[in-house]
């Protein structure tokens, strides 16, 4: 009973509070205005967290509630919600991260005059993700899915001082929307095929064609930043840093993985769809990791690492291990939120995103430093931090698939396994590089060229020349997120958690040695490069590949050349056709009618003699015709 009431509220409360927040004055409402906006924002996330916790306590078996929403022909659309333990763990991750982001933002945006709509949009964003998590109807899920896209657009474009922000926002929405073309068609297909959009009905449908699943995957690729639709994510760094934390950790990019998890029974029936997913995942995993090695922008390293880590999740799905994917999603949410919020603290303190302007921050920002150590360690998969256990799970699942277990073809298992192993070494390499470049070595002094790059935290022209740890409201979320980043992996030893996710028992066998060796290899080579030439970027060792990696393999250019420019040219062509052919034909009818009228009018304008002749000729002609007609009949 409690659950049935609370399930719709889980998404409903933050959505309603978000809408209410949008009604608050957008300008700088003074201290009171800010406080009201902050209260509404934090309350939305906090209430959602509370509801999640209550639901976790009361819900033992998966529960559902369904109301009729609309009917199109024979196709019912329902307002249906269903939540099991696994879904609730995702909701927990979402709400915890959202709450911390809201609290953190109060300080981070303390002098932003457009804070009120920002906080409201974060609430809407959270609510939309919770809708995706709790929806038991594909159309309802699509609502959350797209509202999230719109909120990401608004939030990425939030910063008025960044000329690149509006373009990045548009790119994020449009690229994901391109994926959503497939998603909508896929949903339509699934719904029509099952005669209902309820997920439980769709899952029960046996005759789902592979093409529908591939269409759904297009949407997943857009939302979860999978190759080739990953290009929006690095640019999305133009958003304020807390937004990056929200997008990367628990919402948006997690949504795609979550949808495949939800629909996994369908994917398990289609080896072809899994193969496509596996190839996509492996490319994304390596591409993201390699691109991360050469970035100078702190946030961009983290952004590319997200691309790569999502690749691990989709890889796990591709080899038939949805539990491992979800486990990695949860640990990733913890350590990536930690990393982004800590990165925000760094940027806040030094006033730039560029690592080449950082260094030696270890002594002046000890809390942030240790947060980074934990976060990067978890990212790289250092035991016993969270990322180690979840990544281990993915690797084991892939290794199993290479032996022909599970629904995926054997070769997909091999591709994912090899990519994941390679990824371990590269991840360790760039994580080490980030840590060394930012926190070790000598502090670099500020100069005039300081404020270049994505300086989204340029709020304070701090008179204080020494960077320092952030104030309490920003520090505590970071510190608290450190706890799951360290311990969440150990949850795999809790039988309750394992059974909820249907996760395998962690096995520390010999197979663990290979990734460990690769981890050490990656980390130590980065360290060796760094200490061999102090002050020089280890990425220099990449040589001529470096600009290539830094530009994300120039896929942006490719996308520009193959899609954006042709579409633009086509649009120009269509516009001209519309004006010069379609409309000109219409206008032409008008002008030629007028011209014809002028000619006829001129012909009728005649002096009396000619007119008289014309009349008599006409009469004569008519008479002749009449005579002939009369004679003939």
């Amino acid at each position: 009973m409690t659950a049935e009431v609370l399930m719709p509220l889980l998404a409903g409360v933050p959505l309603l509070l978000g809408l209410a927040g949008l009604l608050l004055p957008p300008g700088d409402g003074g201290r009171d205005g800010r406080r009201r906006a902050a209260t509404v924002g934090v309350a939305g996330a906090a209430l959602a967290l509370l509801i999640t916790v209550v639901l976790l306590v009361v819900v033992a078996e998966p529960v559902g509630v369904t109301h009729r929403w609309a009917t199109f022909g024979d196709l019912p659309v329902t307002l249906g919600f269903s939540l099991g333990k696994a879904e609730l763990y995702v909701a927990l991750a979402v709400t915890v991260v959202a709450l911390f982001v809201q609290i953190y933002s109060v300080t981070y945006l303390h002098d932003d005059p457009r804070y009120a709509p920002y906080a409201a949009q974060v609430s809407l964003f959270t609510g939309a993700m919770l809708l995706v998590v709790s929806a038991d109807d594909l159309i309802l899920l699509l609502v959350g899915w797209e509202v999230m896209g719109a909120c990401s657009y608004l939030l990425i474009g939030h910063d008025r001082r960044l000329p690149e922000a509006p373009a990045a926002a548009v790119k994020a929405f449009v690229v994901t929307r391109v994926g959503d073309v497939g998603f909508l068609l896929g949903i339509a297909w699934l719904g029509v095929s099952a005669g209902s959009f309820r997920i439980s009905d769709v899952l029960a449908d046996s005759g789902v064609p592979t093409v529908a699943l591939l269409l759904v995957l297009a949407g997943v690729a857009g939302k979860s930043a999978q190759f080739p639709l990953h290009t929006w994510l690095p640019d999305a760094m133009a958003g304020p840093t807390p937004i990056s934390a929200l997008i990367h950790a628990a919402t948006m990019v997690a949504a795609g993985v979550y949808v495949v998890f939800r629909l996994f029974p369908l994917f398990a029936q289609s080896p072809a769809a899994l193969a496509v997913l596996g190839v996509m995942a492996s490319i994304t995993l390596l591409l993201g990791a390699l691109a991360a090695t050469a970035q100078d922008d702190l946030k961009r390293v983290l952004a590319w690492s997200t691309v790569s880590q999502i690749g691990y999740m989709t890889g796990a799905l591709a080899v038939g291990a949805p539990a491992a994917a979800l486990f990695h999603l949860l640990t990733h949410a913890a350590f990536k939120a930690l990393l982004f919020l800590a990165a925000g603290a760094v940027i806040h303190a030094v006033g730039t995103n560029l690592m080449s302007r950082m260094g030696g921050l270890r002594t002046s920002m000890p809390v942030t430093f240790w947060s980074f150590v934990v976060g990067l360690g978890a990212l790289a998969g250092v035991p016993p931090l969270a990322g180690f256990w979840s990544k281990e799970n993915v690797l084991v699942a892939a290794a199993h698939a290479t032996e022909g277990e599970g629904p995926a073809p054997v070769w997909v298992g091999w591709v994912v396994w090899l990519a994941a192993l390679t990824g371990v070494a590269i991840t360790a390499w760039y994580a080490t590089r980030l840590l060394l470049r930012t926190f070790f070595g000598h502090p670099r002094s500020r100069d005039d060229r300081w404020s270049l790059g994505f300086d989204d935290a340029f709020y304070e022209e701090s008179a204080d020349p020494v960077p320092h740890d952030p104030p309490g409201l920003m520090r505590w979320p970071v510190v608290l997120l450190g706890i799951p980043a360290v311990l969440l992996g150990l949850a795999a030893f809790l039988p309750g958690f394992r059974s909820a996710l249907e996760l395998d028992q962690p096995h520390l066998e010999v197979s663990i040695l290979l990734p460990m060796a690769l981890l050490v290899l990656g980390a130590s080579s980065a360290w060796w490069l760094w200490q061999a030439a102090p002050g020089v970027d280890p990425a220099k060792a990449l040589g001529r590949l470096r600009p290539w990696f830094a530009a994300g393999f120039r896929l942006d250019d490719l996308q520009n050349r193959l899609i954006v420019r042709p579409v633009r040219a086509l649009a120009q062509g269509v516009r001209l056709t519309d004006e010069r052919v379609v409309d000109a034909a219409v206008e032409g009818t008008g002008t030629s009618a007028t011209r014809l009228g002028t000619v006829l009018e001129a012909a009728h304008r005649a002096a009396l003699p000619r007119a008289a002749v014309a009349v008599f000729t006409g009469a004569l002609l008519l008479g002749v015709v009449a005579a002939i007609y009369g004679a003939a009949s």
Partner: protein
Amino acid sequence: MIAPTDVSSALQILLLATLALPVVGALVVALMPARLDRGARIVATAFAAVTFVVAALLALPTTRDFGWFDYGGTGAPPVAPWAEVDLAWVPALGIDFHVGVDGISYPLVVLTGLLTLLCCGYTVWKVPAGGSGRTLAALLLVLEAGILGTFLALDLVLFFVFFEVVLLPMYAVIAGWGGPERRRAARKFVLYTLFGSVLLLLGVFTVVAAAGTGDLLALAGGYGLSRTTQCVAFALFAVAFAVKAPLWPLHTWLPDAHTEAPTVGSVILAGVLLKMGTYGLIRVGVGVAPEGAAWAAPVLGILAAAAIIAGSLVCLRQTELKRLIAYSSVGHMGFVLLGIATLTVTGVQAALIGNVAHGVITGLLFFLAGAIKDRAHTGDLAGLGGLRESAPRLAGLLGFAAIASLGLPGLAGFWGEAFAVVAAVERGGPLWITLAVVAAVGGALTATYFLRLLRRVTHGPATGAVTGIPGVAPAEWLAWSPLILLTLVVGLVPALVLAAGADPVAALTGALR
């Protein structure tokens, strides 16, 4: 307890009042002296308000258990309205004054009442340059009468008469209160749509001559007309309504008319006038000539998909604010027509809700575009920019309307577009799947051009044109907030529009199965 007969006679009075009130109002307002101009506009608003309330009350029978739909029984009309009035008009020719309301027309009737009310209220606050305010208000009421009559008519000839009544007042509104190029635009509008009307007239007489009656209830389902007659009639109807809707490539009157029309003219034009085309296609085209509709459906579907893509692509390179929104209508009506072309219940229902949603959202968009143009004195996208710096509320509303218009789920625009695609998938087969894909791609393009619009107008540093412009006035809030609310409400509770239409639509398309 009220007896059913009392209810139905009360409804008949309401029905006639819906049509008579705007006419009376227009006369009263037009006869008021010039010195009472503002008073006349207030009187017009009052008449519009009463008409709106009366129109809204027409839904009363649905609230009780009323046998307003009849499946069984031979000879019973397949589409039974909730309320109808049938008076002999020209008995010699078998033409009746037959009006009625059912689930298909009701949402559009209410929408017409609402938009006219908002527009009349808007003229109380602001009269565009060009003529007296009370004349404009009177013309709006005449327009309302014509549009309501079109939606309520249940006789083919009557339908045609009302369809034509709308033309001249709209011409006068554009030519009298429009922008610098108003005369040319108004002439183009009236001539182009007259061309459509000629075909409609031909179609009407083809049907009336063949069937011997103009009663739409009797004709619904084909009335045993021969296949050839149906095909000819449908072709004539389709072209006539395609001009009005408008369907690509018969759309070129629309951008000119919208760019030049005053704000209230654009709102009525986009909000309800275009709907006469799509409504006519459902009620008259599909209803009277179902076999013809089935015959022409693939062509209609292909043109609709072409309209979606062409409209979006033109918008992508458009540089004028109102022109862009006008072209976006071409794309949106493409979705509506695609829904109709599938000839499935899903598709026609999607078309109905798409109609209403487009009326609400595009009405709002034109209000906003008008407000921006009036303030900045330019509609050129290159000259606008940074609106959110100088007028954050206005920019926020534009953002809301644009996001609604690009079909964000949870807002009104989503249902019509998504389910037009679903209906095409449901229809199946290579052609319709392709059309579904094309339409879905058009959805992505729609997002692209609306975001381009927002990026140009709201983001970036404030340009000279938008610096120091006034914020949203209370009268504007009053005119806009119903549309904002409806966008949200129809998005969240689509059943409001859909529920009553389900059975009549099933009856209309039932003739095809």
